[in-house]
């Protein structure tokens, strides 16, 4: 029986191969060919003795070097489970890596024996590969989390993150979470699937007329809210927007302000308004201002990522705080009326430190000399003295750490610039000698650093500031904590072009001009107030605000409440600080320094409408309950509705038996349910719990439609092929076009065009993100906790944009069908302003990612220089050459280095001077250890070259005070220095190695199974195909789709 079976298969295989060569011209792939029965040496008599003499010593009962033991391997490669290991043995022996050089010296393996061994391995493996191919098929795949979410979204037309509550999916050895073998369905999954389906359909199917939205408008303007009702939210670190400066309107479903019909309704409206406040918690007071026209927001300054401040959001952020007056589900719109803003400070309001302070007054032999028009204020004449006493002519603080103050009245005849010089005693920096000047509500704090020479003097004069002072009487205060004390303060008018103030003037004008060239933008967020800040998430995209001051426009942001961290449902007990949803925005032209205002925005009004329905009933409802002539006949209509839904849900035609089963279920339910809609809902819930929906089903024994009855091996049905293709390139179900092609059995003949169409579709982003994320292990960069004190510029926005850089890079290569070698090195980089500024690249304006031409000298081209890789493979404090090296080996060279053996001796921190060693030096120490040397000699060079990129991927030339050394010697013996030479080496010597690694990873992703030795022939064929097409990105994708494994089996 078994024999018949196998001959039948062989027959089928031959038939199939013929078919393959004759009909599929553009098809890629070759199946492992069964070689003519070779002169295979006998294992027991010919092979075992060789292994015994040359291998078992290290890989046998006593030792298992590299965790490999050969004497227990099954030498029946076809039926045994060890073919993969034998495949490794073949590679090692063929490449002369084994036996190792040391053993070779002692007892060399004769060429004849090596040849015999290889012959045996080669022929056994070839036979095994043929057998393996039968087993080597895609295993039934459950939808993973993302696919489940995408599928439900497409099916129900609801943009909800359905799968977020599901447990995380396991990853295959190669790192992919769409592997059929690994994906399991636990009872917990099933519980969730049902609960999710119920809640999803509750949302999709609506009843009655369009619900009235919760719709409010908050209009800003200094003084506009006087006497009007509004809320105010205090608490820890509150930065409250004055209730006098905004007006809340409650709008009806047409967007008109609701007018209360009576006192009762008025009270209701007021009550809602009292639960709406405006706050800027987490915002620096100097970065926003309430003005007549609205609120001016400077560019947001990202906050430091340390709890609790890490929850404050960037500064400033303006938000509506709504307590228990918001809906909890549905789409919503936030509409912001805004324009460019203006600078709050001008040179007319100025108190600043002088950049190169040269006092205008000076002491000549202890006699003070000063310009003729200077005012001199002697300490002895000061008024309102706090915490100071006169010591001779000096006014000195009593309790030094406490605030001191002394006040003078200054009368200015003509407005202008003045320099302020202080006559004081010297004090060393240890005493933290400080000066605070206050004028017109402006404060200037400075710490004085005096030279050794100055410290020797009895008294000295220091220029402590410059100010623009309008004509009139002014109070000038001096003092502060750790005040140095003083004898007199000299105030001297200076010309506008005086060196002390001229740069300021110029700077201020230049700043305004500079800012005019920049474009502010807005990013919106929704979240929950927490005690120390907020838990928030952004929604929709960042939008540039190009409207000029005075010509405000409305910018609309759309989101879905369920996807955002809105407050948890409460128990009904009202607490002062719970149940607060925040809805806000910041100026997304992010800046790096608190001195940089960025291009300001003026916010005039914010509207919030939720739920927002463009049409009623929504698409989610009308796609299920579509218009039909049979709507009057419940029975017939139910059959239409259910049939249409399960066909879409199951992604293929449904046989009569199945439909009848669902209809019977409906009949049964209809008796109990009060409404037709509810009875249908139960049926649809059941459909969404069926394995027909939850698994990518590829039924057997369905004719492939290529003129063969029941071909063997069975051919993938056209519908299953459509599903494979769309989950490969969209990570979501097939659309109508694909479904129709499959139904007409025309898909297999149209794969080339369909691949192009799918890749050109917006949905291909899902493929790019999902594949890139898992292939390149971008999760590492997202998960690593970077030391914020060492890397203050690595903000959450840089972190986010680094991953975006890599996604956009891969997307750009696919969209433009560029060469895959761009992944190694490219003459462009995908950047937005934020990330460009982080990398120190100028001239990139705006938040969108675009290709920026980049000379090779900048060292930023290709994956190998991208932050997502470099920062993801650090330890949060320092670059990590081993992690980087292993990544390069795995992802670029397709070579999985062995795991470190157990009991690895740690780097010996007792070594004298260990603290000061660079990592490279530590590695050398590590490699001195004989048990580590072998593996590390193969790994380390691929990490050492990255040494001049620090933990966050920025280039540096020295570390720990010493120049960085990126020179190394590759395992092949080639000396190289730094990343440019590594890239050059890869592009010169490892083109096919890299292409192969890329093909293997994508093949794995496309089929949802890891590759094995039995796939080698097919991968080789795809590689040929790709090579012929000049290694273009799309040829890799097309090559995989056209391969037999994908297309047929």
């Amino acid at each position, binding site marked *: 029986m078994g024999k018949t079976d196998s001959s039948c298969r062989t027959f089928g295989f031959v038939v199939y191969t013929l078919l393959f060569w004759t009909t599929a011209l553009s098809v890629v792939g070759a199946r492992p060919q069964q070689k003519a029965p070779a002169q295979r040496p006998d294992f027991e008599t010919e092979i075992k003795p060789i292994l015994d003499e040359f291998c078992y010593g290290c890989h046998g009962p006593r030792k298992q070097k590299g965790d490999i033991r050969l004497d227990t391997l099954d030498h029946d490669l076809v039926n045994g489970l060890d073919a993969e290991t034998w495949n490794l043995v073949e590679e090692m022996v063929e490449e002369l890596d084994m036996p190792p050089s040391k053993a070779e010296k002692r007892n060399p393996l004769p060429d004849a024996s090596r040849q015999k061994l290889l012959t045996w391995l080669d022929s056994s493996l070839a036979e095994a590969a043929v057998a393996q191919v039968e087993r080597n098929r895609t295993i039934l795949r459950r939808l993973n989390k993302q696919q489940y979410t995408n599928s439900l979204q497409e099916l129900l037309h609801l943009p909800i993150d359905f799968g977020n509550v599901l447990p995380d999916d396991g990853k295959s050895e190669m790192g992919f979470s769409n592997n059929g073998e690994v994906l399991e369905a636990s009872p917990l999954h099933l519980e969730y699937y049902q609960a999710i389906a119920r809640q999803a359909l509750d949302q999709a199917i609506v009843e009655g007329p369009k619900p009235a939205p919760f719709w409010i408008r908050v209009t800003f303007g200094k003084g506009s809210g006087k006497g009007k009702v509004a809320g105010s939210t205090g608490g820890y670190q509150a930065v409250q927007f004055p209730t006098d400066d905004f007006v809340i309107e409650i709008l009806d479903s047409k967007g008109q302000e609701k007018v209360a019909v009576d006192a009762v309704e008025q009270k209701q409206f007021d009550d809602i308004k009292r639960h709406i406040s405006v706050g800027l918690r987490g915002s620096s007071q100097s970065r926003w201002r309430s003005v007549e026209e609205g609120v001016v927001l400077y560019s947001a300054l990202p906050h430091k990522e340390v709890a609790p401040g890490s929850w404050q959001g960037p500064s400033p952020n303006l938000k509506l705080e709504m307590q228990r007056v918001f809906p909890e589900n549905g789409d919503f719109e936030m509409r912001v009326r805004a324009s460019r803003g203006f600078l709050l400070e001008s040179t007319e309001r100025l108190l600043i430190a002088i950049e190169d302070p040269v006092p205008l007054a000076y002491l000549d032999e202890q006699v003070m000399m000063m310009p003729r028009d200077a005012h001199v204020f002697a300490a002895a004449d000061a008024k309102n003295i706090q915490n100071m006493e006169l010591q001779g002519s000096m006014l000195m603080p009593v309790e030094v750490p406490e605030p001191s103050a002394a006040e003078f009245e200054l009368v200015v005849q003509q407005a202008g610039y003045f320099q302020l010089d202080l006559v004081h005693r010297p004090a060393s920096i240890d005493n933290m000698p400080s000066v605070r000047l206050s004028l017109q509500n402006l404060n200037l704090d400075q710490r004085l650093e005096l030279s050794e020479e100055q410290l020797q003097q009895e008294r000295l004069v220091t220029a402590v500031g410059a100010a623009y002072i309008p004509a009139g009487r002014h109070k000038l205060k001096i003092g502060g904590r750790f005040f140095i004390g003083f004898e007199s303060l000299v105030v001297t008018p200076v010309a506008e072009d005086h060196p002390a103030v001229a740069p300021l003037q110029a700077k201020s004008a230049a700043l305004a001009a500079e800012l005019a060239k920049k474009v502010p933008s807005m990013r919106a967020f929704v979240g929950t107030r*927490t005690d120390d800040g907020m838990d928030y998430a952004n929604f929709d995209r960042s939008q540039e605000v190009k409207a000029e001051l005075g010509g405000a426009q409305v910018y609309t942001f759309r989101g879905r409440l369920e996807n955002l961290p809105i407050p948890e449902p409460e128990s009904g007990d009202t607490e002062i*600080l719970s149940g607060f949803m925040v809805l806000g925005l910041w100026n997304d032209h992010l800046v790096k320094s608190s001195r940089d205002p960025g291009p300001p925005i003026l916010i005039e009004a914010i509207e919030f409408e939720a739920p927002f329905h463009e049409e009623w009933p929504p698409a989610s409802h009308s796609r299920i309950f579509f218009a039909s002539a049979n709507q009057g006949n419940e029975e017939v209509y139910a059959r239409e509705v259910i049939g249409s839904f399960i066909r879409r849900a199951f992604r293929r035609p449904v046989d009569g038996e199945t439909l009848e089963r669902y209809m019977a279920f409906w009949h049964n339910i209809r008796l109990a349910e009060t409404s037709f809609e509810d009875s249908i809902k139960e049926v649809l*819930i059941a459909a969404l719990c069926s394995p027909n929906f939850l698994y990518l089903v590829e039924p057997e024994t369905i004719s492939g439609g290529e003129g063969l009855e029941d071909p063997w091996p069975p051919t993938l049905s056209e519908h299953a092929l459509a599903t494979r293709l769309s989950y490969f390139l969209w990570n979501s179900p097939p659309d109508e076009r694909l479904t129709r092609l499959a139904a007409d059995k025309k898909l297999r003949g149209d794969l080339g065009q369909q691949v192009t169409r799918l890749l050109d579709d917006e949905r291909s982003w899902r493929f790019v993100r999902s594949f890139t994320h898992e292939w390149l292990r971008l999760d590492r960069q997202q998960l690593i906790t970077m030391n914020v004190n060492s890397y203050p510029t690595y903000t959450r926005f840089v972190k986010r944009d680094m991953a975006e850089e890599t996604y956009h890079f891969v997307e750009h290569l696919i969209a433009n069908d560029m060469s895959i070698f761009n992944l190694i090195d490219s003459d462009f980089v995908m950047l937005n302003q934020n990330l460009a500024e982080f990398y120190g690249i100028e001239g990139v304006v705006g938040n969108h990612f675009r290709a920026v031409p980049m000379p090779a000298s900048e060292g930023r081209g290709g994956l190998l220089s991208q932050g997502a890789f470099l920062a993801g493979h650090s330890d949060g404090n320092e670059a990590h050459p081993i992690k980087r090296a292993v990544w390069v080996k795995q992802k670029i060279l397709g070579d999985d280095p062995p795991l470190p053996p157990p009991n690895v001796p740690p780097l010996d921190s007792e070594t004298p001077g260990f603290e000061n060693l660079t990592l490279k030096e530590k590695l050398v120490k590590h490699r001195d250890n004989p048990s580590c040397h072998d593996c590390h000699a193969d790994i380390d060079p691929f990490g050492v070259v990255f040494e001049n990129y620090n933990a966050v991927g920025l280039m540096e030339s020295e570390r720990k005070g010493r120049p960085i050394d990126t020179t190394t010697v590759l395992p092949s013996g080639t000396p190289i220095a730094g990343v440019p030479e590594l890239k050059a080496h890869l592009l010169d010597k490892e083109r096919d190695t890299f292409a192969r690694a890329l093909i293997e990873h994508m093949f794995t992703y496309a089929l949802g199974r890891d590759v094995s030795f039995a796939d080698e022939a097919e991968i080789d064929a795809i590689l040929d195909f790709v090579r012929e097409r000049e290694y273009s990105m799309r040829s890799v994708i097309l090559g995989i789709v056209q391969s037999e494994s994908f297309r047929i089996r």
Partner: protein
Amino acid sequence: MSRKSWNLDRRTFLRGLGVAAALPFLEGMSWAIPQGQGSAPKRLCYVYFPNGCSLPSLKDKDNAQWRWFPTAAGKDYKLTKVLKSLEPFRDRMSLLGGLSHPKSRELLGHLAGDTYLTAGDVRGDRYQNRISVDQVAAHQLKKHTRFPSLVLSVDGGVGYKSRVSTLSFSADGRPIPSEHRHRQIFERYFSTGGSQEERRNSLQQGKKIVDLVLEDSKNLKKQLSKYDQAKIDEYLESLNSVEEQVRRNEAWLDIPMKEFDASDVNFDADPRVDPKAYVRATFDLMALALQTDLTRVMTYMCGREDGMGFGDNFPNLALGIQKGHHTISHDTGAGHWPEWGRYDQWVAEQFTYFIDKLANTQDEFGPLLDSTLVLYGSACSTTHNARNYPTALLGGKALGAQHGSYKIYDHDTPFSNLFVSMLNAVDVKTESFADSTGPIPGLFA
């Protein structure tokens, strides 16, 4: 206004359609449970108090008696005035020092309350909490009882992120609303009337869906290759266990509650008037729930962090200290240690009431305390210091607990190690929980 949110509404979910199974599960379909069946139940209780504890220096002779922790380590430890009420239970109690959650050590102490039973990571830009240990246990132990767990607190609800009012978090790291109104708790969980019909209907619905899907799956299986059939078998197996659960849930509906006497529960205690009666009423209900084997997992958050909720005023109501609990915890003025210590002592006395009750209430297997592990503690030691959690573990003699000493662990020891040991003690076989590095040594035989 609709209170439904996408993130699954846990109440619907738990009580929902059978499959979700808040309801119970009967061993081997024998309806005789809970009486006289099998072996003794194994259960877990977690009791939390907020704002840390009084911890004057040992050298501070005047105040050393107000330290929460005892004065000497090992078997010969001496309880201070704070935990004096627990003295009779020395042989059934361990005091544990030095423990904390590594990811919460740098947090402001109040925020550490959010991670007390989860060991979640709320340091970064997003609130990444995770499932709490009681829910891990509940997920497995629910098959023995009517309800998976009771989640209780002084204030009810979830509070808000960073200042929660619940100790329990679901599998996706979301807070599970706690309950605090005694009468409602009693009616919801201890009475068999009320929403019976509603439950029965929803179970029926769930059963029908499972039946249909089962048929669908079997039909599909026929069309698949043998490799894929194995995969569908895995799905069918899970479906079977869901189906079994639905049937067990249904069966519970007809089983009468075990007899109990609730006559001494004060259902009307007002937290604004009589905190002692209020807290004790919760402990009474907890003891009743164990006695009737209603559930085997309970959490009780005995007050909110940071001056919130009813609990902040307890020192004033109970002891006449004219300060809130949170203020006391920050106070550095003269006499602040005795004030804090006295309040800690008061809280401990209420807790002792619970322990005493468990020790003196029997089910058919013996005193409840012997089959229950009770964890008592807080997520700060002194003011805002989220290390060296004050921790007492009581009961569980029948579960192999080795009591009688004050153990001081290395300050790097993850608090989760204790969770791992406790889970294993109640047969929830677990190698690790969150960032644990192994079981805690020396507590269990």
